[in-house]
């Protein structure tokens, strides 16, 4: 089987993922992705009749087994300082981010 994830597709994925890779990393990761895809293609060997539904998780939750949604109410957190202090850049308790690049929609 030819390589499904070509260097061009790979570079596109890397950009979408907001990653930046060295040449060595890119070579290793692209090879591993193509190897994993060979394994994933094993799924094609399983006969799936039309009525097989998807499962979002294994255990089907019966009515009443999940907690009811909470009211959408605002509650003050007891220690906002502990959260804000984790931010890499803070100014007057606002989290600072660099300029957001201008992008034109095609």
């Amino acid at each position, binding site marked *: 089987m030819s390589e499904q994830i070509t260097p061009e597709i790979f570079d596109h994925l890397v950009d979408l993922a907001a990653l*930046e890779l060295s040449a060595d*990393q890119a070579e290793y*990761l692209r090879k591993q992705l193509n*190897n994993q895809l060979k394994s994933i293609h094993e799924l094609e060997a399983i006969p799936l009749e039309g009525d097989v539904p*998807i499962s979002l*998780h294994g255990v089907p939750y019966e009515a009443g087994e999940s*907690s009811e949604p909470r009211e959408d109410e605002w509650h003050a957190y007891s220690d906002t300082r*502990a959260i804000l202090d984790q931010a890499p850049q803070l100014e007057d308790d606002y*989290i600072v981010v660099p300029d957001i690049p201008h992008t034109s929609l095609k």
Partner: protein
Amino acid sequence: MELCDLSALELTRLLREKKTSAVEILQSTLQRIGQVDGRPGALDQTATDEDKEKVHSFITLTDELAYKQAAAVDADLAAGKDPGPLAGVPFTVKDIFCVKDTPSTAASRILANFTSPYTATPVEKMQAAGAVMVGKVNLDEFTYGSSTESSAFQPSTRNPWNTKHVPGGSSGGSAASVAAGEAPLSLGTDTAGSIRQPAAFCGVVGVKPSYGRVSRYGLIAFASSLDCPGPVARNVTDAAAMLQVIAGEDRHDSTAVKVSVPDYLSRLEAGVKGMRIGLSPDYFRITFPDPKTGEFCEQALPGEIEESVRHAAEVLAAMGAEIVEDVPMPNTRFGIPAYFVISRVEAASNLHRYDGVKYGLRTDRKYADLREMYKFTRNEGFGLQPKLRILMGMYVSAAQYSEQYYKRALRVRTMIRRDFETAFDPAGKYRLDALLTPTTPTTAFKMDAVYGDSVLMQYADQLTVPANHAGVPGLSLPAGLDGSQMPIGIQLLGADYTEEKLFQIGRAYEMATENEAWRRVKPAVLR
């Protein structure tokens, strides 16, 4: 025997009989850690020859906090108060759980400077039960691996039975710390076998509870539809006692089910008479890609592993269980391919939050704008395994491939689930109480033997991952040693929320085999 080698429930008994104190138990535990563990994992370190003789379970030792907790337990006892069912019992926490005011790293550079402002529900429940947290233990970065080698915090954990071998993963620090007497209990997580596989490799007991049995609140997420927190212990009784404490609904996690938690200890020694326990040929062979050719091949398991399972079946049959042979589980072999898709899509989604803005690492490099800051930060902060999962997750969930890969994998998950429903159907042909299988296709492999081959590494979870897809509970327990004196694990799988039954079978097996010679052999670091 040192205090640190006793079981959790023996320790609580001694404590309540005032034959020891929580502080004395902690001192014994910290002494053992000092003897066997070596330096904790840290960024930018590599293992020296000296390191290769030690276990390295820990990333962060929380001894000061532990002394405070132990002293509080002793004070409660002195005042005649009940300090809880696990009073004074030391435990370790896989460093994928948030614990307030404690570094919570996920073994990743991107979270190396993160101190959690809150505590995960399972940890909170352990502490409320009087258990004493001694530290945060190592794991594969973000839990992505089966050997703990991918941790950004090196030296990574080594197997206490032979430090040239891996402890398994991703809960390698949890299993190794329990095996080496550094704590009788540990809190781990299991997404494809990450509790059961290292438990098997390190000769301890590991439990993957039913999905939703234990809250995931405060767990740094990998694959949210598969992640299950659970206990690692030295025996089934301790594992049951720990699950008793951490199980139950949680208003902070809507997937934590409102299904009552039975008393796991009350019928623990009720025996297995009349129980139907299945064996499946689909768990005695593995399908995996040849590392040289990439071609998929099918192979029988190593004889020693299959013999351990069959011996366990004979032991249980002699105690009155009915062994049901040839239970078909035909979709077992598709567990890993489906996992490659589902777990990657969920991991990619969960990893987008690490962006250098709200917490964690932000690059020191100069950047022109937000987009460049993201790229530099994520490149520096993530190791190869998170990057691999992000890229694969994005590829297989892309609009043009979603039907072919992601939706197909979710339908295959349904097929895997149906295998278990058929086996456990009380009105069906098999009517099993449990399925008995090997936990792993091999015993613990050597360090560096598999690391780097992400496909082969994933296939180490081939016999554990179906339970994650199906959501059913699994228990791994020690069942002997191979010719190299490395532990062999066997696995019990049950229907939804039947952990009680698995504990009962596991305990029966322990009692029936307590005089077998292998049970007297200690891990190499303790000899």
